[in-house]
Every structure is written in structure tokens, then in C-alpha cells.
């Protein structure tokens, strides 16, 4: 088990180095001069240009610049945002909880609905429930979620008026963040109406973001179950005279979860992509919206370090999933 984790870590090292090179390279790949690009339409005086060049280290050889960048990153220095003039890491940390909160709820929705639906569809293979669930799942899987979000807004916010259109909480509430998680903070302040407001703000974005993972998990659970149900050990379990429920929920499910966990892990990367769209549609103040705005504002310091930070988060989650995978799979855990 330890060896397995160390092996996974060893694989990650070159990837992380590659990620730093890639995110570093992007800013250098920009068409034209990065300083002129940052300066925008107003241009910059030759003296100021030289000062900026010095300040950003662009006068140094490229590899020196790279090592300075990595050195900074290793010391928690991700640069200063050109637009907010705050350290990138500060902005990141203040916005990150919003994205986590949204993603967690989306994922919970996907897992709690997707796995049982997949199991049931597999057990009742070919039934109307199976066909309907898989039809819905394929539709969800094919959904352009930015449009799906707009549709839900039209219906629930516009037509029914049940949910707010944007933000994390009604503007009338203001909290100094404790954890940064709105649901937790409102409860910590003991403000029940604020909590309800936060929940109402969260529901639609979570549904939108959870749609594709839900569809994928349901489909994967079903196919993993179908495969496992044909295995010899399931026949053995039935030959032991166990009830169908125990055969499915103990013997088959445990094995079927192994590929499903991998799928859930892969969804995390997609979740970040989905968060960009979802946060844009619902004006959710998270990492996705931050990145989009930084790209359109040409705040390349944020883009460079944001890419790096997000990639690191994705890698970290993947590592966690690999460990979880080993925990539920004795063939890896016990050698």
C-alpha cells in the first residue's frame, strides 16, 4: 500500500514539473510583448518599460526566469495580480471555498443519485426503469450545461420565481467569512434565514454542475455492475444460497465500486471545467469565474498562477482518488 502510494507520487513529480513549465510557458507564448500586453491600450513610456522589464525579470535569461518563478511558487509567492494588485494566492484562497462548496454539493448529488440509479438499472436490466434511467443519463451526458443553466433560470427563477438568479447569498446578508463556506458560516453565526438564502442560491448551480457527473456515474455504475454480475464469484455467491439483495449489495457492489471510484476521480477535472461555465452563468464568485475574468482582462499573472494552482488541486484530488482506489481494492492494498 505504502509502496503503491509512493509509486503514484513518483509518477506525479515529473507531471508537476511539466505543469509548472507549461503554465510558465503560456505567458511567454503570448503574441507580442507581455509588458505591452499588460500595459494595455495606454502604452508605456520607454523608461517605465525598462523598469517593468526589470521588475518582472524579463531581462534575465529564460531559464533564470523559470527558476525564479518556481522558487517563488515554492515559497508561496504566485505573483501579484495586475488588476487587483493583491497577491494571486490571497485571491485564490478567498475564492476557492466558493468553488469547493459548489463542487462538493454537485458531486454529492451526482454520487447519491447516480450510484443507486446505476445499480437498480443494472439489476433490472432491460426494464422500463433501466431504459428510462439510461435515456435520462445519456441526455444529461449530452447536455450543454451553460444552456441547461439558462433553462433552469428561465423556469425556476423567471417563471416560478423560486430561486435567485445569481450569487451565493442575498445581498442583504453580510458576513465576514470564517470558513469561507457560506452554508457553514451562516450556521456558525446562527443566522437561519441567511442559511436558507444560501441554500436557495446553491441549489440551481449545484444541479447544473452535477448533471454531467451524475449521468456519467449512473452509466458507469450500471456497466460496472453488469460486468461484475457475470463474474464467477457472483455465481459462487448465488450458489451459497445468499439472498439476491446480499449478492448484489455485498458481493457485486463492492467490486463494481472499483471502476466507479476511478470514474468519480476523473470527474473532478471535468468539474473544474464545468465550474467555469456554471460560475459564469450564476455569477458565482469562485475560481472559474475568476479565471474567465482574468483571461478576458488579460491579467496574465493570474492566468499563469491560476492554471498552476488549479492543476495542482486536480492532481491532489487524483492522488486522493488513487489512494481510495487502493483502499477498496485488496489486490493493491494487500500484496
Amino acid at each position, binding site marked *: 500500500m505504502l509502496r503503491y502510494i509512493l509509486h503514484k507520487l513518483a509518477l506525479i513529480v515529473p507531471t508537476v514539473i511539466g505543469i509548472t513549465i507549461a503554465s510558465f510557458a503560456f505567458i511567454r507564448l503570448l503574441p507580442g510583448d507581455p509588458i505591452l500586453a499588460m500595459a494595455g491600450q495606454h502604452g508605456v513610456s520607454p523608461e517605465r518599460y525598462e523598469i517593468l522589464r526589470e521588475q518582472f525579470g524579463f531581462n534575465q535569461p529564460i531559464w533564470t526566469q523559470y527558476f525564479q518563478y518556481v522558487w517563488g511558487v515554492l515559497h508561496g509567492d504566485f505573483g501579484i495580480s495586475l488588476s487587483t494588485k493583491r497577491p494571486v494566492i490571497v485571491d485564490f484562497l478567498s475564492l476557492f471555498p466558493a468553488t469547493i462548496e459548489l463542487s462538493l454539493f454537485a458531486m454529492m448529488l451526482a454520487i447519491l443519485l447516480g450510484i443507486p440509479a446505476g445499480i437498480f438499472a443494472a439489476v433490472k436490466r432491460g426494464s422500463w426503469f433501466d431504459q428510462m434511467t439510461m435515456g435520462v443519463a445519456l441526455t444529461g451526458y449530452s447536455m450543454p450545461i451553460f444552456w441547461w443553466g439558462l433553462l433552469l433560470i428561465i423556469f425556476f427563477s423567471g417563471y416560478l420565481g423560486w430561486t435567485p438568479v445569481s450569487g451565493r447569498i442575498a445581498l442583504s446578508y453580510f458576513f465576514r467569512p470564517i470558513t469561507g463556506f457560506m452554508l457553514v458560516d451562516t450556521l456558525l453565526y446562527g443566522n437561519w434565514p441567511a442559511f436558507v438564502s444560501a441554500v436557495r442560491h446553491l441549489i440551481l448551480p449545484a444541479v447544473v454542475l452535477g448533471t454531467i457527473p451524475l449521468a456519467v456515474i449512473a452509466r458507469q455504475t450500471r456497466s460496472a455492475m453488469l460486468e461484475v454480475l457475470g*463474474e*464467477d*464469484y457472483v*455465481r*459462487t*455467491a*448465488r*450458489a*451459497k*444460497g*445468499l*439472498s439476491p439483495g446480499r449478492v448484489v449489495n455485498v*458481493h457485486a457492489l*463492492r*467490486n463494481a465500486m*472499483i471502476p466507479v471510484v476511478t470514474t468519480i476521480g476523473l470527474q473532478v477535472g471535468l468539474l473544474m471545467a464545468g465550474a467555469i461555465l456554471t460560475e459564469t452563468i450564476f455569477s458565482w464568485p469562485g475560481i472559474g469565474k475568476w479565471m474567465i475574468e482574468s483571461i478576458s482582462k488579460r491579467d496574465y499573472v493570474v492566468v499563469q498562477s491560476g492554471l498552476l494552482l488549479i492543476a495542482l488541486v486536480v492532481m491532489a484530488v487524483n492522488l486522493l482518488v488513487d489512494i481510495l482506489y487502493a483502499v*477498496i*481494492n*485488496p*489486490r493493491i492494498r*494487500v500484496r
Partner: protein
Amino acid sequence: MAMLEIKNLTVAFDTAAGLFKAVDGIDVSVDGREVLAIVGESGSGKSVAMLAVMGLLPATATVTADVMNFEGKDLLAMPANQKRAIIGKEIAMIFQEPIASLNPCFTIGFQIEEVLNQHMGLRGNAARQRAVELLQMVGITDGAERLGAFPHQMSGGQCQRVMIAMAIACDPKLLIADEPTTALDVTIQKQILDLLVSLQDRYGMALIMITHDMGVVAETADRVIVQYKGNKMEEADVLSLFENPQSNYTRALLSALPENAVGDRLPTVADFEDTDGGMSR
């Protein structure tokens, strides 16, 4: 009355190419304390018939029989929960691929204790003790340590022993072994066959041995049924089968054994076939 009595059993599979009869109207009966071998080549339907008895066939299979009784109880008409009280307790079965037949996610202790729990209501320490005892009976002496092992940590022969331990856990009256040694090496095969026969003898079980190997038949069986393409070719006690085979097919099988080669070439089944390619009994 025989312990297991089957008359005119037919199993048909609904395949993409149409209905396929894997078993076509065969009769099987077994008495207590008897070793019956069902022998046939692949596609002869020998496993399918026994899987039908156990109720382990997929939903695409249609099973019909005039009689399918175990100790006078009709296995076909019986409700599922009543049948589950018999399956795994009174009738147990072991399979060809021992490693694949054990659940890779659970320890062998869990898997043995599960049967004891299901049919005998044994839990906790009592179940654990009985499991160690069972492992001892199948020749695994360090049972107490082995309970925590996973199937992938053991060899094929060890896994088959665990399968046997699980099968005999509730003192079954009938043990069905479906090609139990095909996936194993010769020396291990010998050990497993000896173990099965000695357990059968010691606990007075009936044993149905499904095999394609005439050697296994010769070494274990009291009585033999020869199957070919879903039909029964011959039924005889083991000695007369080998000494004086009645059907052409049995004669063909026996003469195709390399150890029975007379002269330079082996006769094959084709040499015994009727002109129309069929096989007379």
C-alpha cells in the same frame, strides 16, 4: 427414491442466432453416498444441466423438466426463498476456476463464515472456529492465519480447497463439482480429487463430478453418464463403461486416449460417426 431425480430435463438458450438447446431431454438420478461422473466434451451440456439444478443459469435460459426433485421436493416449483435454503446447504457446488470463483474483495474467512451465518446461524467466534475447522478438513493447516487472506494471495489449488471448505460447511447431502481440477496442475489435481473422494466417503455425501477427462472419471466415479451435444449417450457403472462401452461415442472417447493407442495413429470420433455425421447410441 433417489436423492436427486431429474427426468427429461431440457435447457434452451435464447441467443441472437435463435433458440439453442444446450441440454435435450436428459435423465439424471443420484443416490446418497454415490459418486456420479458426467463426462462429455465442450458443448455437451454437462455443466448446464447441473447449473439448472442449482438455479444458476442466466435469465436467457429456459429450463423445463418432467421431474426435478431433491429428496422428493420439487426444485422447479419451489419458491425462490425455499430453494435458497437448500442451495448452499443441502446441495453445494464448486467450479472450474477456483481463483475467479472467490470474491477478490473479501477475505476467505469472511466468505466461509458467510455461509455458516446464512444457513447455520453461526456468528462471531463460533463461526470463526468452525471456519478454521473446515480449513483443517480440506488440508489447510494454518487456517487461523489464512482466514485473513485474500484469494489473490493464494494459489489455484489453495483456492479450490477454500471453495471445497465453503461447499462442505453445512454438511451438504450432495456436492456438485464442475470440472474442479481442469485449471490445476496434475499433482494438485491428484490432491484435490483425493480430497473430494475422501470427504465424500467420510461424510457420506453424494458427489456429482462433471468432467471432460476420462482419467478423472476412472479415478473417482462409481457410475458414469456420457453426454454428447446435449444428449445422454450412455449410463453405466465405471468398470463396465471402461471394460465394455455400449455406445460408439464412448468407444471413440476411450480409443482417443493417447495411453490406449494401439499402433501408430489414434482413432478419432470421426471414425465412429454414422455416415450422416450423427452418433448412434
